[in-house]
């Protein structure tokens, strides 16, 4: 029973990481109606920028804030420079570019910062005010950050006109223009926000897995799985999906399949969900009458 509890709580801690990345995935999906495969590598690159700023002597929170701003601008720049010109191109062209971006960011990070692993500081205190050996302070911090981010994103889409306009622009660009929404601004904003959320995810993940260009490899797959399980249209669902993936991964690893098949497990979950519940557990099923 102790093992079970330990694994479950440990799963929640890693799940928080997946949940954060899943949030970034949901953000971009709501804004551009596509999966961005480069999301993980963009987050990794952002984290390196923060690391560099800290290495140059910037205090953590200054580096954190600067990294968010740089990532936001960088995300918008990617949309404006690369995706705006191919806006009307078929989905496959977009996918090819997503994959290209993944490789470019990975190689660029390796080129600039090398592939040796680096330590990334945690913003949370080294010890918890209460005594427990079930969950560490950084893990608890990530769970907190995840929930705060979820609240902000949920409120953005649910209660702000801009959030509603962003969903409208992604789903029906022509009609969006006809009500006065600038679709290009919404796309750029969506990319910027997704990049900034990814940066937060990266900076929370790096203290756990150490910073190196390939750090997102496995995590992104689980983040995607979390987003798909929870539902790509639901920020709350994506977070629950992320936590579920963390716990399932740990329990399956402990009791069922061992650690070799962990990544395969994420893929099996993605495929199973897509087969039987394509909208995810909490996603809105889109019904369209004609």
């Amino acid at each position: 029973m102790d093992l079970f509890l330990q694994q479950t709580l440990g799963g929640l801690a890693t799940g928080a990481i997946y949940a954060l990345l899943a949030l970034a995935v949901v953000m971009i999906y709501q804004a551009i109606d596509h999966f961005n495969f480069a999301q993980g590598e963009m987050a990794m690159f952002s984290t390196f920028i923060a690391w560099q700023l800290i290495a140059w002597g910037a205090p953590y929170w200054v580096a954190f804030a600067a990294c968010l701003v740089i990532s936001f601008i960088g995300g918008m720049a990617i949309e404006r420079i690369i995706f705006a010109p191919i806006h009307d191109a078929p989905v496959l062209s977009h996918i090819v570019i997503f994959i290209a971006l993944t490789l470019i960011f990975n190689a660029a990070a390796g080129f600039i910062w090398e592939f040796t692993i680096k330590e990334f500081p945690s913003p949370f205190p080294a010890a918890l005010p209460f005594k427990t050996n079930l969950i560490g302070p950084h893990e608890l911090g990530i769970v907190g950050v995840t929930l705060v981010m979820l609240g902000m994103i949920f409120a953005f889409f649910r209660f702000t006109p801009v959030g509603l306009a962003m969903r409208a622009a992604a789903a029906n660009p022509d009609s969006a223009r006809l009500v006065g929404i600038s679709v290009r601004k919404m796309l750029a904003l969506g990319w910027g926000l997704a990049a900034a959320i990814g940066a937060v995810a990266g900076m929370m993940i790096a203290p756990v897995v150490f910073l190196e260009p390939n750090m997102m490899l496995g995590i992104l797959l689980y983040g995607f799985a979390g987003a798909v399980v929870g539902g790509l249209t639901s920020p709350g669902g994506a977070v629950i999906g992320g936590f579920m993936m963390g716990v399932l991964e740990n329990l399956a690893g402990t009791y069922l399949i061992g650690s070799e098949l962990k990544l395969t497990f994420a893929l099996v979950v993605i495929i199973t969900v897509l087969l039987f519940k394509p909208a995810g557990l909490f996603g809105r099923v889109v019904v369209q009458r004609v």
Partner: protein
Amino acid sequence: MALLEVENLEAFYGPIKALHGVSFSLEEGSVTTILGANGAGKTTTLRSICGMVKTAGQIRMDGADIASKATEDIVRTGVAHVPEGRGTFTRVTTEENLRLGAYSRRDKKAIEDDLERVYGYFPRLKERRLQQAGTLSGGEQQMLAVGRALMLRPRLMLLDEPSFGLAPLLVEELFGILRDINQQENVSMLLVEQNATLALELADHAYLLETGNVVISGTSDAIAADENVRKSYLGY
């Protein structure tokens, strides 16, 4: 002065020219209809005014050129387009669709009032306000499209086949509402409609479009009395 002036309007779909120098104008407060067979360029004319197709020529709203503006900026001059196929935001609720219609406005209080006003015109929409808009019936989506356009507080509404796919009773109701909107709120309308009889009843002016050219224009009564129009479009 005319609210909308179109001069020598040409429109292109890639290399294909769909309008060959169309000119017409629309007086403030009037309902003007564009008649014509399928493929005459009626929908293209409306899409051109909204900047949704590549055009040459002049389009002026209230004397100011809008031909070179982006769609979202044209909308902000008070032009609301009710597109063919309705353009519903299917994934969000009915009420969110209506709120999106008011996206370019900042007068929160008046937006709430207008929401109630639209619900007053279309009580069915109020019943369905929290329902996902994609699940509405065709007729309800048509009401929603008109309601969404009204939420802009438009000076000019461009209506593309508002009767399409509606049961006769609903068509009558919808056109009654359009007449009210025109008369009580002084919203000008440019109407494209397959049902020419219906269109000429609502409109005060009419233009007949044939293969991208205006061939006849005049008051609705004069057009309705025209021998050729009667034979070709009114069928009696």
